[in-house]
């Protein structure tokens, strides 16, 4: 959620205007923000896992490598939505409104808060369209060690999102 705010704040403060007359590229600026939030994200993953396994006896039967790869993919695709907003929003206020509109419904309906399994079928159909829902399905499949046939659709959705949103962010990047 913070990712689009920083860049659109830079845009409002005319920092991006100054960057435009340097050799910097939008890819570099966006990559820097993604890296910072990726570090936060991985740290919180480690923390959640430690608390879960030490105090609640949580075990993940699936392969660690596949889980981490899925986590990275879901993380990048969620960030790509933020990058898309950050790349074009004129200031922090607009960025925060658009990001909230995009992220909060996803947080509520994707299964990140309310479990997907307890939702009525109609609500599940709506939730299926949201990218984060697919991301969570992918993570569940990876953590339980399920085979690829279950996970191919979420995988495709995640990759498509990264390409589309990342592409929009770079192609339509506004320096001012």
């Amino acid at each position, binding site marked *: 959620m913070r990712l689009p705010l920083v860049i659109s704040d*830079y845009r409002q*403060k*005319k*920092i991006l*205007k*100054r*960057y*435009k*007359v*340097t*050799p*910097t*590229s939008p890819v570099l600026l966006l990559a820097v923000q993604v890296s910072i939030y990726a570090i936060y994200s991985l740290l919180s993953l480690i923390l959640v896992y430690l608390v879960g396994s030490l105090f609640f006896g949580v075990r993940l039967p699936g392969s660690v490598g596949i889980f981490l790869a899925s986590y990275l993919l879901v993380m990048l695709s969620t960030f790509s939505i933020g990058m898309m907003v950050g790349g074009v929003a004129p200031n922090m206020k607009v960025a925060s409104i658009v990001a909230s509109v995009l992220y909060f419904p996803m947080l509520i309906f994707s299964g990140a808060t309310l479990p997907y399994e307890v939702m009525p079928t109609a609500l599940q159909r709506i939730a299926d369209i949201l990218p984060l829902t697919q991301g969570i399905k992918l993570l569940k499949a990876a953590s339980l060690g399920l085979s690829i046939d279950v996970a191919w659709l979420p995988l495709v959705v995640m990759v498509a999102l990264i390409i589309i949103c990342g592409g929009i962010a770079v192609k339509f990047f506004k*320096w*001012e």
Partner: protein
Amino acid sequence: MLTFNHQNANGAGKTTTIECILGTRKADAGSVSILGLDPRKNRKELFEQVGVQFQEASYSDKIKVWELCEETACLYRKAANYEELLRQFGLWEKRGAFVNELSGGQKQRLFIVLALLVVL
């Protein structure tokens, strides 16, 4: 060294002209070439050799003088020594201060330093 002095009345379009030359604004007509390069098409190559100081000082909230110098210097393949420049412009003692604590004149001097990082 050659210096150009572009003067005109208020609102005549001095800043707009410069911004069209730099490529930060799209001109309605005409073409621009700096060092044989188009500022919009060959931006990355051109601005390795051209430094710019805008009218407005733009910087992150809590950034320090030396941090802003480092941040700007690393954008270039080869940058001048910013410590030398800070000394030259009487800002060496202020290198650890927050940019927003500098006086108006000091800020302008700092941004001249940043623009001169291209001059090796």
